[in-house]
């Protein structure tokens, strides 16, 4: 597991990506919780927002995150079959597939929008996921002023 940087060290590197993570309450949030209780360190750049299920994570939330200036958005929930509400993640999967391609077509592509399955037991996977996404976004650089969804007033 590679050494994670603290905020102080990041600041010297200059660009600090702001990543918004919409996660489902039953699996990924529990996984993130497990990462915390297992003392796993992961990049502090992520802001985690808990929703009942990936089925409830609306594309409007993703647009609102980019509008507010997110450098990247992660949407994560239970593996197919594990959903507390049986089929929330199946619906979400179709929605992500179409919405992801539409946003990519409009200028918000794979280095800005990430989807993942993280179960309640995968604390390690969650920590690694956040670290790798942070690294990718840092190399991609700030999303402003390219971000087409950004509020400019």
């Amino acid at each position: 597991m590679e050494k994670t940087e603290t905020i102080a060290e990041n600041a010297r590197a200059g660009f600090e990506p702001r990543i918004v993570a919409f996660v489902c309450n039953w699996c990924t949030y529990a996984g993130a919780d497990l990462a915390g209780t297992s003392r796993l360190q992961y990049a502090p750049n992520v802001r985690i927002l808990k929703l009942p299920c990936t089925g409830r994570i609306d594309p409007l939330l993703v647009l609102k995150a980019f509008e507010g200036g997110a450098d990247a958005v992660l949407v994560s929930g239970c593996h197919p079959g594990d959903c507390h509400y049986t089929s929330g993640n199946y619906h979400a999967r179709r929605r992500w597939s179409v919405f992801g391609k539409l946003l990519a077509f409009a200028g918000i592509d794979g280095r800005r929008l990430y989807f993942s399955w993280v179960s309640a037991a995968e604390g390690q996977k969650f920590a690694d996921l956040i670290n790798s996404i942070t690294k990718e976004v840092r190399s991609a650089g700030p999303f402003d002023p390219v971000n087409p969804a950004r509020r400019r007033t």
Partner: protein
Amino acid sequence: MSIVDAIRADAAGLLQTGRAKLVLGYRNRQGRRAPILLADAAGADQLVYDAECRQNLAAYLRKPEVRQQFPVAVVAGPPVMRSLVMLSAESQIPAGAVTVLAVGENEYHGALDLAATAQLLREKYADPAPDEELLRRVREVAAMSEEERAAFWTEQFSKCTRCHACRSACPGCYCQWCISKRNVPQWISTADLSHGTFAWNITRAFHHAGRCTLCGACEAACPQGLPLMLLNACVAECVEKEFGHRTGYDLEEKPLIGSWRPEDDDGFVR
């Protein structure tokens, strides 16, 4: 008998017998084509039909003034027929409320009910010739870098005045409270600034995933000439490739985003 004469005869017949209280068709208007809502048989000779008829008449089925006149008849080419089948699959058309005056590329199929229309579409118009020019432009934009694509769409959306002609022209946009009208919370900004027009155009295109028949009415209606069909074509291509879904061929088709299959692809999920 020419196609137009056949349409006029059927329209007059339906109005006289009362099988339709209103016929939605096209009229000649100073050389261009415009929708006409005929209530009396005498006016049937105003009806015309040719490739210039681009408005999707299925969009009128959400108007209260039209719904009060059910049953109605609709002059429909393949894209409009598919929209009618889609609307029926989404429970927007009561049984027997719509008779379709079905017109093909160069053939008139008579007055059909929706079941017969879906059958006709499956037999005769199952795989319409793709619009090569449109697909070329979609590839052209898709080939751009992320920065170029973002700049391209920011520039296109900057002309959008949020007049919602695209929403009014589309049969799929029948929500009484469109998301853009909601202000608690204000999901989509009301201003025509970049964040408002981007969120509006992307949300509009996404809400038609698996529901759009690529009829082109939205782009034709846009006063500022935005290339909306690029967004629709991108979504339609993904929907057909990923889920094998083609809109408007089955009265019982399940909504794309509202249904799922275990074997749906999720290779893009980490």
